[in-house]
């Protein structure tokens, strides 16, 4: 009886406490910037481990350091200089954050709970072996089932044989007397065969579900999701050029001349990158998303002008350890998207050229302008 009286508030307190901690444990938005170079309790990345940073330095110092580390170094703050030296002179970029934001980050770091986070952020199973050695076609098949039409050959053969048998029996060896049996079999198999042929023919020359092994086992998940690196950081020319661009080894080296140990693959894969840099031999990536030679496609048009997200064509790359072609990239797929997608009509000055639509929109007779409306399905939009 008494025990219960004592225990209940304790119990409640525990609950409340855990709840609060849980609540505080949602990383603030600003933290994503830090996480590119820092970990909490996962050892040194580019910058030092932030675990217990609050104990190491007092808050005021931290705030000013986070705001602009270099000024402090220049001003010759001993601690700052020491840190700078320790972290082989990689300057920490300045952040224009308010003090409260920084405090938020610090509190987050303070009551950061590894178990909680690891369970929320990534469901990664520790990969012991490195799957870059070409024995990964099992996963490729899986993806084929997932995206592509799958393997239809057996079904085809079965129905073809059935078809022939029915035909032969109907004409020559009249084993089954009831003709409707033959008829049904024949019609069904013709339908099935036709369907298979149609699907296969559609996929002919396309690579949906294509996921080749790359020379370097590179995980977009690790880079894009866990380290929060923006797509455009590596695929830099997507905004101004027709091609998004493969990152030059130099770009990789920006981080990897410090980060020598990967979360999943250990040192092996990163070593390849470093090696490529030292031997001045570019890495020969295998292109996954190929368009036929007679198609002219521009990333700038879609990313910069059309304001499309990368994922709309490339799938959830940030969740892929191994990149795979999600869409079939066929013309029908392009055209249908052009039919349904609105252009940035009001936003972009260029579309003032379309006086008619402008008026219609003013008059309210037209609600939307699709890509198709402005000639998005002209042949020579892509073929010339």
């Amino acid at each position, binding site marked *: 009886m008494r025990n219960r009286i004592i225990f209940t508030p304790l119990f409640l307190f525990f609950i409340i406490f855990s709840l609060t901690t849980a609540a505080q444990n949602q990383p603030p938005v600003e933290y994503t910037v830090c996480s590119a170079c820092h970990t909490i309790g996962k050892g040194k990345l580019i910058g030092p481990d932030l675990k217990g940073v609050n104990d190491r330095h007092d808050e005021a110092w931290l705030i000013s350091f986070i705001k602009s580390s270099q000024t402090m170094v220049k001003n010759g703050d001993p601690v700052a200089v020491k840190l700078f030296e320790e972290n082989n002179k990689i300057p920490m970029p300045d952040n224009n954050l308010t003090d409260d934001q920084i405090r938020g980050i610090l509190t987050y770091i303070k009551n950061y709970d590894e178990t909680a986070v690891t369970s929320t952020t990534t469901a990664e199973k520790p990969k012991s072996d490195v799957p870059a050695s070409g024995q990964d076609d099992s996963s490729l098949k899986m993806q084929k089932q997932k995206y592509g039409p799958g393997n239809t050959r057996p079904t085809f053969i079965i129905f073809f044989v059935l078809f022939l048998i029915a035909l032969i029996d109907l004409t020559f060896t009249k084993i089954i007397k009831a003709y409707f049996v033959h008829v049904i079999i024949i019609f069904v198999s013709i339908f099935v065969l036709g369907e298979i042929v149609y699907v296969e023919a559609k996929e002919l020359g396309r690579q949906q579900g294509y996921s080749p092994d790359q020379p370097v086992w590179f995980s977009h998940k690790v880079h894009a999701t866990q380290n929060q690196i923006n797509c455009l950081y590596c695929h830099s020319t997507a905004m101004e050029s027709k091609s998004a661009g493969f990152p030059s080894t130099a770009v990789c080296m920006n981080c990897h001349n410090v980060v020598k140990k990967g979360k999943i693959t250990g040192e092996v894969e990163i070593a390849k990158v470093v090696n490529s840099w030292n031997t001045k031999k570019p890495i020969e990536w295998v292109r996954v998303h190929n368009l036929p030679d007679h198609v002219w496609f521009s990333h700038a048009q879609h990313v910069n002008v059309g304001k499309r997200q990368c994922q709309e064509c490339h799938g959830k790359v940030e969740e892929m350890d191994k990149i795979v072609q999600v869409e079939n990239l066929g013309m029908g797929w392009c*055209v249908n998207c052009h039919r349904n997608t609105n252009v940035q009509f009001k936003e972009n000055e260029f579309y003032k050229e379309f006086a008619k639509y402008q008026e219609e929109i003013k008059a309210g007779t037209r609600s939307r302008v699709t890509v198709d409306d402005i000639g998005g399905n002209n042949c020579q939009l892509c073929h010339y």
Partner: protein
Amino acid sequence: MYDKTIRGVLIKGDKTYGQITSEILAPQERKAPMWWFAFMTLFTIGLAFGVYSMYVTVTQGIGTWGLNNSLGWGWDIINFVWWIGIGHAGTAFSIFLLILRQRWRTSINRAAEAMTVVAVLCAGLYPMIHMGRIWNAFFIMPYPNSRGPLWVNFNSPLFWDVVAISTYLMASATFWYIGMIPDLASVRDRATSKIKKAIYGFLSFGWMGSARSWLRFETTALILGGLTAPLVIAVHSIVSMDFATSVMAGWHTTVFPPYFVVGAIFSGFAMVLTLMIIIRKVFKFQDFVTDGHIDAIGRILTFVSLIMGTAYSTEIFMAWYSGAEGEIYTFFHNRIAGDHTKAFWTMVSCNAIIPQLFWFKKIRKNLTMVFIISIIINIGMWFERYVIIVTSLTKDYLPSNWATYRPTIIEIGIYAGTLSIFGLGVLLFIRYIPMMAMSELKMILKPTSKK
């Protein structure tokens, strides 16, 4: 039942039903004569030449032909239209006469239709191989492809061609085959060897000749006839629209559809005549293919050739009357006079002038003359297509593009190939298929009580 008092006898030397069967099937039941094998080998060689030429065309490109930037079509389309024309006779023949209940057709229509089928096959070959990228020929089908889907251009006469010709081939082939079933049955019944019985049994679709079957048979034939009659006209009108719908001087002419249809029937009948005369001579069928038949076709040809003459003069008149420089040039300075004079006058004399000889009964009776003229007509019809295509394309609106055209050996080879296919078809026909519709012949045979 046929009342002989209205018309003259259609089958000479009053035969019994049995005789009809045995005499018509005689060629099949006899051993094949020497000349048959000789011609088979000859045509096979020709076919080989043709196949080689097609191989070269497809693997190396249309460049192996004599065409150029100004002249996109040459012998390919000339021969295509020519064959289609020939292919018109058979069906036109049997169907029109069927609908008109002209019973004298019965001894000829079988051969005519067989000729049609083969000729249309030859014709159909050309639009295929004249494509630059034959491996993409399926683009022309309106199938739901994955490109949006992107359909075909239903305004294009070439697409109409595809539809019309495939339909025509289908219709005429089935029409021909259905009409053949009863005769195949009789072949089956008379067959002595097991294999032959099995084969013809398979081909004759288990025909027995019960009254119900006969009723449905005749109804179907009539319906098909009714459908195919407009088709015959449509097909060649559409072929003519390949030219009529364009802007080129000498092509852009409203008279083309009727003019082409008539031309087709003209060349077709001529070809029928040629064939029937040969068959009659070779197999001694003068009792079935009587002088009456020859005479009748002769009269028709005379009439049709008059129409052709009218068409030609209309064209020329309209060109002058329109006052359009391009037209005038094409007709007066490029056809009547100018580079292609020879071709033009060959065409006119062969199609409009020489056939007028048929006015004379003597000539209609004289088989050799008829034979020669029928061949001349087909030559003339070939030149008609040559004149239409080559003159208009070589000298078009801009004199800077004026060009000339000379076919290469490859083109000639392909033509030879199609000719051989035709020859082979005919040879196989006369060897393995009853050359005349026996059941229909029996229908028109006078009823006899003596046995």
